[in-house]
């Protein structure tokens, strides 16, 4: 029996939501793979032979743009992008009855719950509230885990809120969660993924969370809850049946339901067997020969009967799946994968080594270039004084944040190497933590600040001139010997005229700005060009795996906000 199940039983009848995050240590990858040689052969077979005779020049290649679908909002007239999302549909059970009971009171309470519970919980779990109706809401999440957790948190909190009320006045949500490829609009979300979520919600009992098979597959090893399969259900207007799971408050509840079902099954089975065995025995005895088969049957049945009787008395009644009064806090959802540190870990060492910063006076400069369509038009930008990290943030600096449980993961790798495999959101978390612990307004640089700093007062193609020179930047073809891996430490190449290292090459660096496919409409005061929660953000600098075109100070690229990639890092800035 897995460890978490035991824990659930220990809690026994304590009626609490007891789900927690499981950690899958390591990957199953090792040893599972097909021989690499075969794969390599296959790969080469499809390889470079289908090259088209039109040699598309590299300049032209760099003109390739992608817009839309999480990359850019460049085509406003075209259809809204489709994407995979976890959809939560929530709805208050017996809303009209409640309204009849106390119209004004119910309305005020529902509004308050929406404002104080539903909206903030969705936000905390990185979801987006798409719309609210009188008695319900629909929200979308990138992550099924976060979606389910959000649903559980809402249910758990509602119990506390209802505790003070008489039962007829309880406001109880039904919640359905589904994973689907949907069309996301600014004000609504469409597709049968959404319809299935609301059908699941309709199936759920008040106070419960029902999830689809798709969600279950994604979360089963991530949140240790009990899940009771309700089998395939046919839902209205959806052709294929949908597999439905009920989220149980704790693993113990799952065992209880299973034990109940199993015991019924086992008892009836053993009765049958016994009857059969008895019959056989009687038959054989009456014929006074061939008793052996009956004896075997009797032996077989014995332990089966013993099993359930042993486990039955200890089991509390299996219903009451939802807590009535107490509800301990769910494990904090915010930092994604913090290692199991002792609970009493100190928040942050009192003395924090702050990153090396260089203060720049600000001024006016020409931002952009004509080398690539994303860098057009060249435009004047005037910046105020600001400070920027001398180096990209290192593994050591990052791990201080991770140790304080404020950053999502502990990085492996050399202490002085730049931190990599961080998403924009990860980088923001680090900056927020640094600002918090130091009391100084640390933040990510704006795109304009980054380019100003990278140019180091020059206007040439690279900060050192028009021609590529070895030793100035870390990129695939910037050095004499081709770079095959990340440098061991930040600052392995020459500093630019401002004394800044790795402003071009080494690691891609996130900046504060949302991605825009060019500078049409960009601000001229050096502020970040943002519009709320944008799906992709700007990367600067290029990495050790890119070629020399990416090292140019004006080069810009984009990537999904919440996705990690092994060449992506960042540096921080500060408003002095």
């Amino acid at each position: 029996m897995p460890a978490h199940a035991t824990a659930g039983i220990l809690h026994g009848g304590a009626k609490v939501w007891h789900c927690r995050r499981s950690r899958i240590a390591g990957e199953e990858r090792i040893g599972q793979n097909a021989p690499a040689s075969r794969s390599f052969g296959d790969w080469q077979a499809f390889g470079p032979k289908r090259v088209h005779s039109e040699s598309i020049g590299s300049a032209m290649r760099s003109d390739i743009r992608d817009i839309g679908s999480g990359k850019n909002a460049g085509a406003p007239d075209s259809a809204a992008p489709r994407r995979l999302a976890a959809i939560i549909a929530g709805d208050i059970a017996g809303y009209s009855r409640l309204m009849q009971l106390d119209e004004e009171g119910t309305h005020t309470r529902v509004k308050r719950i929406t404002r104080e519970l539903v909206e903030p919980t969705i936000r905390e779990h990185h979801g987006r509230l798409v719309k609210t109706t009188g008695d319900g809401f629909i929200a979308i999440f990138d992550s099924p885990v976060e979606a389910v957790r959000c649903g559980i948190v809402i249910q758990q909190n509602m119990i506390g809120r209802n505790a003070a009320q008489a039962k007829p006045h309880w406001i109880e949500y039904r919640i359905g969660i589904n994973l689907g490829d949907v069309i996301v609009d600014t004000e609504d979300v469409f597709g049968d993924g959404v319809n299935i979520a609301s059908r699941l919600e309709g199936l759920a009992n008040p106070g419960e969370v029902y999830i689809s098979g798709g969600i279950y597959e994604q979360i089963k090893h991530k949140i240790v809850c009990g899940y009771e399969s309700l089998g395939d259900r046919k839902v209205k207007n959806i052709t294929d049946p949908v597999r439905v799971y009920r989220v149980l408050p704790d693993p113990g509840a799952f065992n209880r339901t299973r034990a109940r079902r199993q015991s019924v099954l086992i008892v009836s089975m053993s009765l049958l067997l016994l009857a059969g065995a008895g019959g056989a025995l009687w038959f054989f005895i009456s014929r006074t020969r061939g008793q052996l088969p009956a004896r075997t049957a009797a032996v077989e049945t014995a332990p089966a009967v013993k099993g359930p009787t042993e486990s039955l008395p200890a089991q509390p009644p299996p219903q009451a799946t939802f807590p009535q009064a107490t509800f301990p806090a769910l494990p904090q959802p915010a930092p994604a994968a913090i290692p199991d540190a002792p609970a009493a870990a100190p928040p942050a060492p009192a003395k924090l080594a702050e990153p090396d910063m260089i203060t720049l006076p600000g001024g006016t400069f020409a931002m952009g270039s004509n080398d690539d369509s994303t860098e057009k038009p060249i435009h004047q930008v005037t910046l105020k004084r600001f400070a920027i990290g001398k180096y990209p943030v290192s593994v050591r600096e990052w791990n201080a944040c991770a140790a304080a449980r404020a950053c999502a993961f502990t990085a492996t790798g050399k202490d002085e190497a730049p931190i990599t495999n961080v998403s924009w959101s990860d980088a923001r978390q680090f900056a927020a933590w640094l600002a918090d612990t130091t009391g100084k307004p640390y933040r990510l640089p704006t795109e304009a600040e980054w380019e100003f700093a990278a140019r180091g007062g020059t206007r040439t193609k690279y900060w050192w001139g028009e021609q590529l020179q070895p030793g100035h930047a870390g990129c695939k073809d910037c050095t004499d010997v081709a770079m095959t891996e990340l440098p061991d430490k930040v600052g392995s190449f020459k500093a630019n005229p401002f004394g800044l290292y790795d402003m071009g090459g080494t690691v891609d660096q996130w900046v504060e700005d949302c991605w825009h496919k060019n500078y049409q409409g960009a601000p001229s005061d050096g502020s970040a060009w943002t519009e709320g929660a944008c799906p992709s953000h700007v990367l600067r600098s290029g990495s050790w795996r890119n070629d020399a075109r990416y090292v140019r100070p004006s080069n810009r690229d984009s990537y999904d906000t919440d996705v990690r990639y092994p060449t992506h890092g960042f540096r921080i800035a500060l408003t002095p």
Partner: protein
Amino acid sequence: MINRRLLLLLAAAPIVLPRAAFAKGKPAPKDALLYFVWPQDGAVIKGAFWCRFGLRNMGVTHAGDNFQNSGHHHLLIDVNEPLNPEEPIPQDKSHLHFGAGQTEARIELPPGKHTLQLVLGDADHFPFVPPLVSKKITVRIK
């Protein structure tokens, strides 16, 4: 003596090798199929277009999610170099990533002929083993 050493080496090989040589990429189901829903090979397109990605017998998930038989899309535009199965799929202007689980993208290309190809990446952006790629198609932008 030599034989003995060889035997020892052979015995040790399975322990060492999985880490060294086979450490990258997950196996994909044999019947998995990656393809373009749109555009079709040889299509002539005016201006920007929605490129729609098709995947059969596997699931699309977010990058970073480590589940069996699922991955996320990458669109390779005018890429001629073979992909290195030992490395994550590159990220640059001709290797577009769709790690948020996108199943389509608005693509704008300069006029002329271009090749498009899809590659499915695992949680860590590695190609599957063997690589799950679509047919490389050619489109012409008017």
